[in-house]
């Protein structure tokens, strides 16, 4: 029976893989008060001798949009990948929608989705075929109607039956967003959602994300280099540098603390090691 359960699910090894991170005497991280969609505690990811993520902790409230900000190699993508269970932490704990990750990830994967520049949709398949497959993987009810609705919402109708490989970058991003929304996720993880998009399309995507959050009370965690995007979308910003959290607050308070008018200026301060107001 044990072998059978191992074949059904790869979680058995994930438990072992993060065994050192378990703290059996601590209370469960599960979302008991209903407020935290994501809880990260003392999370570390070590690649050989490099600390990709270095002992970070945060809680993300349900229905919020949080931005993970940081330069290249800051640890944003690794953090998101650990939240998704695609990368195993060296130590620390992650809980998503009340489920321990990676041990219980299959309990909540159907309520999550993601978009990342590190993955693509199959190029030879049409948009409709791709959405059909992912809809079935997520067990979406009334899939045809759902695809039609997404096609209307995200303006995909004119190329719904075109191969994904024949789409422009902006169209591909909209399709990737449609895939990320196909199951109406409670938690959306986005890695650079508007990378390589023209300002108009990027603005359009941001608007859609904002509307989705409001209408579905969804939680969105996005990693971005785009300061304006984060400033406009996010209730809260977590600034990372070399795997550590440098700051964590609302965009307004962070800008006030650094005595700056834009997050971009704050980002440059952090990147170049200039200290914020009131610190020594």
């Amino acid at each position, binding site marked *: 029976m044990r072998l059978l359960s191992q074949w059904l699910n790869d979680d058995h090894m994930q438990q072992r893989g993060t065994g050192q991170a378990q703290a059996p005497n601590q209370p469960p991280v599960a979302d008991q008060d209903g407020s935290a969609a994501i809880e990260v505690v003392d999370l570390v990811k070590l690649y050989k001798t490099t600390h990709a993520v270095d002992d970070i902790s945060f809680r993300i409230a349900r229905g919020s949009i949080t931005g993970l900000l940081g330069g290249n190699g800051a640890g944003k993508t690794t953090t998101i990948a650990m939240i998704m269970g695609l990368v195993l932490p060296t130590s620390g704990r992650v809980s998503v929608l009340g489920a321990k990750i990676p041990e219980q990830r299959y309990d909540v994967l159907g309520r999550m989705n993601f978009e990342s520049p590190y993955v693509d949709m199959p190029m030879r398949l049409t948009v409709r075929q791709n959405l059909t497959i992912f809809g079935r993987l997520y067990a979406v009810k009334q899939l045809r109607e759902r695809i039609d609705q997404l096609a209307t919402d995200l303006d995909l109708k004119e190329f719904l039956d075109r*191969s994904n490989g024949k789409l422009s970058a902006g169209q591909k991003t909209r399709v990737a967003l449609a895939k990320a929304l196909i199951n109406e996720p409670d938690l959306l993880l986005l890695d650079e959602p508007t990378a390589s998009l023209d300002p108009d399309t990027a603005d359009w995507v941001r608007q859609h994300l904002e509307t989705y959050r409001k209408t579905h009370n969804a939680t969105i965690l996005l990693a971005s280099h785009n300061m304006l995007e984060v400033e406009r979308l996010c209730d809260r910003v977590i600034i990372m540098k070399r795997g550590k959290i440098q700051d964590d607050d609302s965009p307004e308070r962070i800008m006030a603390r650094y005595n700056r008018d834009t997050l971009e200026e704050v980002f440059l301060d952090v990147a170049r090691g200039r200290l914020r107001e009131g610190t020594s």
Partner: protein
Amino acid sequence: MSEIASHHAHGISLQRINAMVLRYWYLLMSSWPRLLELIYWPALQIITWGFLQNYISQASGFFARAGGTLIGAVILWDILFRGQLGFSISFLEEMWARNLGNLMMSPLKPIEFLLSLMIMSLIRLAIGVIPMTLLALFFFGFNFYAIGLPLIAFFCNLIFTSWSVGVFASGLVLRNGLGAESIVWTLMFAVMPLACIYYPVEVLPAWLQIVAWTLPPTYVFEGMRSLLIDHVFRPDLMAWALAINAILFAASFAIFLALLQSAKRNGSLLNSGE
């Protein structure tokens, strides 16, 4: 909480397996070169070996008696080789398409993924091998299906071996990226000399025979020769092959899961390039 999707997490989902088979089916149907390739190589193989068999059967009394042994061996070898390729190429399609992250982040479980690859391997095999058997009948008068019920035992044993090798090779690519892709194309050829496809096991040195008998295909090819030359079906050989296949199958799954975990530790699932 969203009500649009059901969130049953337990057990194997036929819907998810079906979704993956549909994904590969769409891909196959969208690309005529992919379809043509499935038929092209087996057809070329059977025609070349068939004429060779014709030639040597004229020159040798043994081969004249053992009519069809070579052609039968070529078809069975193709079931073994193309069965593994059919499995592994579908897996590689995900790597080439950079779609693995999407799948791993979806509710699709590893076992469901592997089962869908097995189903696709059968579909791809049928597309390639059925025309091959028809060519053997048309050009060389060799009716592969006249083998009868033993063919089921041969086929099952070969396909199980091909899946075991496919699961293992896919795990290696998953862990090491597309840099390990050549393993998929070449691994089965390591089995070829030891599985005694075209010659009996006694031809090998004594110590190598021991190694050969650890491979399920060796039992199948010996069984085929026994049937075509001596007209005797050897169920004992098939039972041994099945038993070894069961061990290989379980081991390949365990190794795949271990390599998947290693890929997650290594962070290579999101960067599945070279």
